[in-house]
């Protein structure tokens, strides 16, 4: 996609809220979808480019939410600064996590990271004097202002999340097109071959992990400011954060620029509407439907929605042949 087209897409995204109630339901869902698209994009740096299936990103996310909120509660520090502090801590946590887990492969890496996030959840639940414990933390109510990152209208948060998604995506593109991107792909295709041609694979993986962890932590701050309340199970939860982020990118298309956006725009509304439509029918029906749909998507479109969208577009424009030759196996 050219610069101009990207620019048009962003313009279009900025116009959507004008058609929606500023404090409505749909704008909230889109806002959450954009937040998760940004989280997916941050995850994509590790999961997509380096091919390492992290199931522990909740650790960084929660760290960011707690850092900025605790700084705000105890010292009145603006969440913007809190977000930077969270980003630094998230990067450090990702670095520390990388040291032992970078040698793990496949499932073992996934399990190691999953356990890492669980450790944070348990600490947040038990270290009550610092974290407030299981009852959670409330972001102090203040007059709406950009400086305190607090708004009355969901519309403002929509733009905030849109900006976050664009920013994380730009970082992703820069990495993809730069040296780190080539090295990461070399590591993904074959770590041994990469070592032979002189890539320091451990260092490359740590770089990616630190960038990804730091970005995820910063997005954790945005989540805290959007929801104003969170508890350890919400921000450090495996199912609610770690697995959902990975799922969004897997469904959307791993390693692609638009995969996280497509995945989030499908999964977040799907969860919500399955819940709204089916919650009063029978217990568990909404989760069952949601699960069945996800399985269908993964079975029918194992390479993700981004690939599907590409094929679809190619078919419409009659370029079926060229798409076949392009398609990765």
């Amino acid at each position, binding site marked *: *996609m050219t610069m101009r*087209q990207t620019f*048009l*897409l962003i313009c*279009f*995204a900025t116009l*959507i809220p004008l*058609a*929606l*109630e500023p*404090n*409505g*339901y*749909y704008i*909230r869902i*889109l806002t*959450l979808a954009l937040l998760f698209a940004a989280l997916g994009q941050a995850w994509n740096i590790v999961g997509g480019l380096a091919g390492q299936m992290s199931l522990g990103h909740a650790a960084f996310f929660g760290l960011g939410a707690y850092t900025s909120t605790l700084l705000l509660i105890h010292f009145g520090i603006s969440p913007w600064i809190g977000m930077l502090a969270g980003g630094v801590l998230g990067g450090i946590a990702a670095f520390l996590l990388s040291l032992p887990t970078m040698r793990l492969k496949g499932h073992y890496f996934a399990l190691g990271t999953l356990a890492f996030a669980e450790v944070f959840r348990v600490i947040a*639940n*038990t270290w009550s004097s610092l974290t407030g*414990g*299981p*009852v*959670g933390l*409330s*972001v102090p*109510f203040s007059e709406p202002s950009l400086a305190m990152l607090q708004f*009355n209208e969901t519309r403002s948060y929509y733009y905030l999340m849109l900006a976050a998604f664009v920013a994380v995506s730009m970082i992703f593109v820069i990495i*993809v097109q730069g040296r780190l991107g080539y090295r990461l792909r070399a590591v993904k295709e074959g770590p041994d071959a990469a070592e032979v041609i002189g890539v320091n694979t451990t260092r490359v993986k740590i770089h990616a992990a630190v960038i990804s962890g730091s970005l995820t932590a910063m997005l954790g701050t945005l989540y805290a400011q959007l*929801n*104003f*309340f*969170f*508890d*350890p*199970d*919400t921000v450090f939860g495996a199912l*609610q954060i770690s697995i959902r982020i990975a799922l969004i990118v897997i469904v959307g298309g791993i*390693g*692609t*620029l*638009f995969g996280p956006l*497509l995945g989030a*725009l499908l999964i977040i*509304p799907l969860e*919500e509407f399955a*819940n*709204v439509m089916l*919650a*009063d029918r029978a*217990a568990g029906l*909404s*989760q069952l439907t949601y699960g069945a749909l996800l399985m269908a998507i993964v079975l029918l479109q194992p390479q993700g929605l*981004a690939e599907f*969208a*590409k094929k*679809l*577009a190619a078919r*419409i*424009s009659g370029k079926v042949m060229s798409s076949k030759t*392009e398609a990765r196996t």
Partner: protein
Amino acid sequence: MDIFVNRRRVLGMGGAALATALMPRLAKAQQGQDINVGVVLPLSGPSAQFGINSKNGLELAVEELNAAGGIKALGGAQIRLIVADSTSAPTAAATAAQRLIAQNEVVAVIGAYVSSLTLAVSEVMERRGIPLLTISYADQLTERGFKTVFRLNPKASTLGQAQVTGSIEIAAASGAKLERAAILYEDTAYGTSQSAGLRKASQAAGLSLVMDEAYPQGITDVTPLINKLRASEAQVVFAVSYLNDTLQIVRTMRQQKVLLPVVGGAGGFILPEFASALGELSEGVLSVNSSNYDLDEAHAKRYRDRFNYPMVHDAIEHAALIEVLGQSLETAAATTSEALRGAVAAKRFEGGWLDGMPGGAADFDDTGHNVLAEPIMIQWRSGEMATVWPTERQKMKPVWVS
């Protein structure tokens, strides 16, 4: 690797997004003369049973109110409940509240049972200035200076204190002096926060804690815990857990002839399934509670006849919230959130479904805390819950076997 898309795909995505954007305008249905009241409760997930009991209580109270002529000050307007599932995630609960406000123009929201869900919902409500009526226990709900939160029940810390002081008083009435206690709790948010309150209250009351132990929720073998409990020589055990662990602990204790009194912290101890699963082993088990059906048998009978299930505390308290709401709408004689909020804050409520509350009335202070809320203690007697403490609310004399 091709990470970019072409122009058509962008257009396709744009079209889909625009269609989504236009949906709410089309979907907005005509509202009748009814007064819409939002309900956010966990109707799926681990707390679903509590959500369903709560919903039943709300529905029965609303049906009766509407059948009796609705809100007379508003020309007999009928109350219509718009129910949304909060699931068990705070984010989803807040989204549900925002949906009710945006799409159904609710004058108030009732919910969301689980404290973490209620806290998330309250953040949305406060920013929109719409009243939130709740029965959730968490202390911090009314400690953030919010103007729109009204909590009918005692605070969690008050309930924790009652669990300790109630036990001491009941023991004293039978001539026993409590000195050593044990705390057993499940390793969850609920268990950890409740046990913290218990610990504080025990220390304040001068009890020495000879055992203070957490165990993982869904524990498969409680025998080691019970052995430790026996060796600790505690005179009473304070237990905090949901149903399954509760059943295992009480069953194992009694089977191993560890007969010391068990005092539960609500949760699984005040569910009808507790007695139906344990049979006569449930006899004499105590628990703290925030209301009980024997305090208002007329209303409780109507509920039991209708749903073929005892009117558990969740149902009583939610029905009482409808009483508060109905009386407020009569006083406000308006359906604006501001007028309604003012009426809830100013008025003292009594009668009707509030008869089932231990204080029989509600009066909210500036923080939204009900100053007339009182904790009680119930005891399982022949498969039913009897209110045994405090003495002035007593329906049956407590039995303390030490």
